[in-house]
């Protein structure tokens, strides 16, 4: 049975190692929970300078990095961020994800959450409007809204605020555009344009600004454009409501507003 012996030994070590790792994994608090069973987890978290989890719309990716840094520097609260389409994040919050603050790109996503009492302390903090992004060199020769009908256009999925706005924009201007793809958030649309996989994309003014020289922007006249209001709120079940409220307030302070302005966001209405 010479050949079987090393295999048996290997299997034993594997099993031992696996069991150790499982135990270690469970011990490091793998299970999330907000009810009575997670009281110990919450106690450990609060003892260790409670980390704030901020979920923000993808169009806030760069500007929130700055704002979060300033917030942490000012208050000493460590912050963890996650960016995705606002509707994706809203679904996560509904399903009980461990998020403390939510910054959404539009009331279409935030209002239902407020009605379901899943968020509190709602504040407007910025506005944004749409812009046509084209790859460098403008291969589709897009100079305005009317040119969109003849080229491949990428927009956000409808349930995401930028997708809702894009759809509204096209409807308001009587444009019969069949998008080549519905992406999951504004940054995904932007990436498709950066990598020259489509001729035009409908993103926010701020996204084009953030992409610097990797895309070109074609402005949409104010009368034809659609704008959206960004809102930030505390998630109702958060185990760190004070720090969350602090952050929500911070977003409207001059420092944060200055960062938003330099990223080309508009002021709150």
């Amino acid at each position, binding site marked *: *049975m010479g*050949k*079987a*012996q090393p*295999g*048996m030994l*290997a*299997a034993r070590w*594997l*099993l031992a*190692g*696996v*069991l150790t*790792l*499982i135990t*270690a*994994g*469970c011990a490091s608090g*793998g*299970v*999330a*929970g*907000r*009810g*009575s*069973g*997670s009281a110990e987890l919450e106690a450990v978290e609060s003892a260790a300078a409670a980390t704030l989890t901020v979920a923000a719309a*993808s169009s806030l*990716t760069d500007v929130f990095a700055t704002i979060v840094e300033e917030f942490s520097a000012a208050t000493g609260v460590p912050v*963890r961020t*996650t*960016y*995705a389409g606002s509707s994706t994040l809203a679904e*996560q919050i509904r*399903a*009980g*994800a*461990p998020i403390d603050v939510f910054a959404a790109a539009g009331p279409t996503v935030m209002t239902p959450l407020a009605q379901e009492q899943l968020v509190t302390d709602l504040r407007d903090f910025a506005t944004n409007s749409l812009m046509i992004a084209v790859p460098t060199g403008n291969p589709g020769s897009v100079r305005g809204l009317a040119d969109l009908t003849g080229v491949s256009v990428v927009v956000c999925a409808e349930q995401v605020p930028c997708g809702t706005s894009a759809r509204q924009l096209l409807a308001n201007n009587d444009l019969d555009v069949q998008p080549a793809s519905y*992406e*999951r*958030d504004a*940054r*995904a649309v*932007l*990436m498709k344009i950066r*990598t020259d996989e489509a001729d035009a994309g409908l993103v926010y003014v701020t996204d084009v600004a953030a992409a610097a020289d990797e895309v070109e922007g074609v402005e949409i006249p104010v009368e034809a454009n659609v704008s959206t209001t960004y809102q930030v709120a505390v998630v109702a079940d958060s185990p760190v409501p004070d720090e969350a409220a602090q952050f929500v307030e911070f977003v409207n302070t001059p420092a944060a507003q200055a960062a938003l302005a330099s990223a080309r966001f508009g002021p709150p209405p």
Partner: protein
Amino acid sequence: MSTVKIDHPRRATPVPFAVLAAVAVAFLAIPLAGLLLRTPWGRLPELLTSPVAVEALRLSLLCSVAAAGVAFILGVPLAWVLARSRMRGTAVLRALVTLPLVLPPVVGGVALLLAFGRRGLVGQYLYDWFGIQLPFSTAGVIMAEAFVAMPFLVITVEGALRSADPRFEEAAATLGASRWTVMRRVTLPLIAPALVAGTVLAWARALGEFGATITFAGNLPGVTQTLPLAVYSALDTDREAAIALSLVLLVVSLAVLLLLRDRYLRGGVR
């Protein structure tokens, strides 16, 4: 698992076959070549040590090993039942076990959500009574990965148990060994190569799981964002990071393939 290999004489390939085979090779090889050629080799160390990458690597390792462990602990007894049990209905049981192999992973994720989500069949009681919430937790990732990985282990081990020579176990029994001793000293060593192969397969499958993980456990960096999920997210923010992480997964897959080569796993007794 023993196979009989017949040695066919090697002949020249007919031209149509050669052409189609060449196209097949190109179809498989070009994407891999694309990945290797577009890898930002110079930036690799920097990309792989970024916080997002390190988190994803750590999570992937932890969850895939734990999932393989769960698959092992639950799967080996199940394999034994399928192979050796006198119980009726093992055919149905086997079909159930094989289902996650064929089921689209995202469908598996939806099913897990409906069963173990906050308002799920079982999940609602876990939440209301114990405050336990599996979606958006690392435990949820382990569950999703175990769900898709366990069948690999069960099938592999069941096959080995079926083809293991029963005479060794009978001999041990006639020599006075208890059932547990027979299991421990005869059966398990006999199928050890299959145990290792099954566990490695399950681990590799768990590591690469995407659809069930993102649907059931969500995509939260540091908590549920495993390597495949990190690649997906990085595609829209930092392509080079996505490529770097993809390379890691590719290397791991190659390593698994090498590890599972028949030469190292041919077991049993000659």
